[in-house]
């Protein structure tokens, strides 16, 4: 598919907050092209610029520089056309807790100018689709986090958008709710909806996205299919834990086996240039140096390795698909934006 027909195209997208020396460069020149029918994952930690990019693409923020077209329309000069064409589920599932699910769907239908005669059927269809038929008349304030997210998704679909933006759709959800939402996103995509989703969860990007862009400090540092990105890393990562006082010696022993890679504190990581068969040699070398191994594990390349290789640090909660329960991780606003250099 040619990029001119891509439902989402961004070129040199920049967004600063503030001005002068104190300006915060939240997004620092993002280029991306999402093909029709694709699920595109925007992966990065809090404060990387994911939500700011989505807010520009959904017309909620004006770019400081650069341009973007969504569904064929310019996000600045044809903002209302963009809004009519897209569905948006923002971070935190901002839903009025005083209204019922059905009332919110009815309101959303009016906001999009949907023919009143078709609203009830459409609302019923969406409520059934997201499993909220029985809760439809209840106030949203009584919904669980997962139910709110599902309603949020239904609201974003009321006008049958061709392009769907999901900003951290599973943040704060328990594993079951997360999987349910993934299934629904896949189903929508099979029906032809182009999806751009942001996430800070590696597994989510790996499982769900056809292509992934890794963003850090407002810049896309890698882009491709998960398989391509992992293949680009090449060597598997060997992670060891040793006593702190022999850590430097251990690093020296590991160095000849490949490039050192960032790992969690208290561990050392090396990309084994010789592949997994080099593990035995590493163990022998450490033993000969008199270093006692406390822990050893071998990782085939993951998106976290790609992220670490590209940025020099790992994602928060790396290796995890996210919090185990809703209480483990409340949705966090973007923080730590980079100051102008």
């Amino acid at each position: 598919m040619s990029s001119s027909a891509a439902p989402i195209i961004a070129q040199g997208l920049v967004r600063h907050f503030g001005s002068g020396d104190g300006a915060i460069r939240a997004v620092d020149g993002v280029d991306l092209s999402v093909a029709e029918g694709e699920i595109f994952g925007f992966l990065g930690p809090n404060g990387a610029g994911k939500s700011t990019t989505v807010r520009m693409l959904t017309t909620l923020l004006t770019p400081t520089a650069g341009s973007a077209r969504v569904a064929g329309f310019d996000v600045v000069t044809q903002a209302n056309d963009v809004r009519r064409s897209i569905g948006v589920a923002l971070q935190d599932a901002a839903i009025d807790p005083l209204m019922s699910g059905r009332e919110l769907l009815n309101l959303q239908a009016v906001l999009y100018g949907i023919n009143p005669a078709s609203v009830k059927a459409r609302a019923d269809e969406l409520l059934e689709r997201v499993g909220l038929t029985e809760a439809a008349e209840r106030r949203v304030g009584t919904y669980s986090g997962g139910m709110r997210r599902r309603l949020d998704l239904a609201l974003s679909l009321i006008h049958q958008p061709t392009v769907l933006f999901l900003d951290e759709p599973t943040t704060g959800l328990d594993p079951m709710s997360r999987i349910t939402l993934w299934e629904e996103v896949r189903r929508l995509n099979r029906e032809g909806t182009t999806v751009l989703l942001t996430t800070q969860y590696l597994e989510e990007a790996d499982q769900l996205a056809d292509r992934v862009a890794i963003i850090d400090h407002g810049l896309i540092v890698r882009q491709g299919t998960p398989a391509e990105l992992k293949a680009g890393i090449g060597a598997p990562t060997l992670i060891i834990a040793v006593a702190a006082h022999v850590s430097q010696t251990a690093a020296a022993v590991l160095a000849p086996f490949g490039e050192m890679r960032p790992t969690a504190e208290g561990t050392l990581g090396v990309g084994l240039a010789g592949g997994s068969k080099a593990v035995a040699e590493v163990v022998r070398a450490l033993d000969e140096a008199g270093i006692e191994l406390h822990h050893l594990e071998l990782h085939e390349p993951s998106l976290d390795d790609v992220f670490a290789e590209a940025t020099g640090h790992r994602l928060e909660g790396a290796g995890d698909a996210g919090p185990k329960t809703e209480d483990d991780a409340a949705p966090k606003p973007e923080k730590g934006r980079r100051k102008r250099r």
Partner: protein
Amino acid sequence: MNLATSPLASPAATTHSRLTQTWAMSKRSIFAIARQPALVVPSLIFPLFFAALGASAFNKATALPGFPRVDSFLDFALAGNIVQGVLFGSVTGGTALATDIELGFFDRLLASPTSRVSILLGRLAGAAAFGGFQALFFTLALMPFGVSIAAGPVGLLVVVLSGATIATAFGGFTAAMALKTGSSEAVQGSFPLLFIALFFSSAFFPRETMRGNYRTIADVNPVSHLVEGMRGLVVEGLTAANVAKALLVPAAIGAVSITLALRTLSSRLASR
């Protein structure tokens, strides 16, 4: 090439769709008020409490020079009680808008192709409905205690309309504050200012009984003029001047406050 094929979204905004959107937003505001009794009840109870206090403490004050001829202090104070309730109620509307901004619901609205003005007007229409309801509620609640409307049923209708217009006028100010700050705490912080504005006005005593700086402040205080328009209908009767004052003074203040709110909305959207 345009790819947009969302089959259900209206292709373009029309006057009819804007009105429909404003009405839908208005209903949402009204439902929100009705569904939060803990927020609403104080703005209904406190003015009645003041009315009871005034009736027991100041009934003989109606004989003072400068007081209009009234059957009871309650007749005189009704307009003040209504304006008191409406002013406090307007804080609730502004707070609700600020809460929408804080929770992100405002962004949901902005991400849709709905008219931006509808978002604001819907909120103000909710305030107007509640203001009209408050005017009717206070009047009916105090009637068993001797309150009567000299202007009759038509006068009562004008009082209700005046309450709605006053609510819109002050709702415009609190909406502007909500749009400027995006903080429900900041909007609630205006409550003491409204309280001061109320007590430095002719809400509970006629300006003719005041002296010095207090009188000067009351003379220029818009709240005095809001109260007096409505009071004329209650204690004097149905005259063109009283109807005009009851409706045009709040309408003029509303024109200022709504313009301010629209400009604040515009600058908020422009700064995004």
